[in-house]
């Protein structure tokens, strides 16, 4: 068995189970997303895939990223995706017509890129793989209070951009209404 499995299982069964469960959900949902013909169904699977990804972040103790993943990606970005698809208003016949493009060249390039990235990931992360996983999880960058680590500077030292953001959001609200509403 690969050392990483050993380590993960040794580091606490619950953790490993959670990690692998989330990974499985992410990958399965991603595959389903690609395979679905109906774009709305694809988007729904993409949401699930994002939620699985958020779970992975939680098991890696990056709570802030996990929350952002759910709020911004699975929530906001996905709503926009869905609306773009709905506004595009593809008819069922159009969707049926959309076969995979018959470009073998693109397929070859995609395959090469896939294997190169897999190779690079394995190559580059070898030291991390060899490290016992509990040490990896205990690393400062991953461990602990990532939300507090982000929050404290954001609301003290970096207060100014934060407050400008509120004006930015307000301008966006006004703009959204100004551009879409018929009668102002």
């Amino acid at each position: 068995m690969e050392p990483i499995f050993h380590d993960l299982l040794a580091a606490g069964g619950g953790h490993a189970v959670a990690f692998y469960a989330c990974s499985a959900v992410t990958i399965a949902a991603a595959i389903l997303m690609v395979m679905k013909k109906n774009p709305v169904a694809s988007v729904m699977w993409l949401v699930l895939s994002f939620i699985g990804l958020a779970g992975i972040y939680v098991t890696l103790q990056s709570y802030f990223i996990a929350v952002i993943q759910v709020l911004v990606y699975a929530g906001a970005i996905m709503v926009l995706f869905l609306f773009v698809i709905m506004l595009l208003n593809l008819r069922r016949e159009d969707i049926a017509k959309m076969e995979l493009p018959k470009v073998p060249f693109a397929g070859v390039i995609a395959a090469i890129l896939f294997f190169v990235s897999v190779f690079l990931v394995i190559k580059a992360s070898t030291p991390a793989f060899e490290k016992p996983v509990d040490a990896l999880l205990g690393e400062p960058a991953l461990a602990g209070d990532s939300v507090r680590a982000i929050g404290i500077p954001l609301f003290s030292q970096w207060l100014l951009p934060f407050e400008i953001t509120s004006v930015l959001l307000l301008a966006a609200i006004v703009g959204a209404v100004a551009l879409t509403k018929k009668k102002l």
Partner: protein
Amino acid sequence: MTPCPAVIATVSEYVPVLVMLIFAVSFAGFSLVVSVLLGKKAPTNPVKDAAYECGMPPISDAHQRFSVKFYLVAILFVLFDIEVVFLYPWAVQFQAMPAFLFAEMLVFIGILFLGWWYVIRKGAVDWSTE
């Protein structure tokens, strides 16, 4: 290899999340099952499922172009969602310096509240008037 105590501690912290998850999933599943069990069963066939168009066979599907109002709702959702993103790290460290943080967030929320007020007063999400 002995498991690191810190990790074990964190794992046990997930238990409430897990319980919550189980509750959420089982509530959704329960509602579905109950509605199937208690609901009136009607026979289905393709003709019955088709859209009714004066008794004629429907020519095309019922897709229509969506009104831009939906888009406005989506954008407003996204904008207020971003507001929540800021609230989360703020709430986590609120105890560190309550008075200062409260004032700071009051300004932030106050400005966005006026945005919300504007949206409501303007009738931007009021669909009956247009």
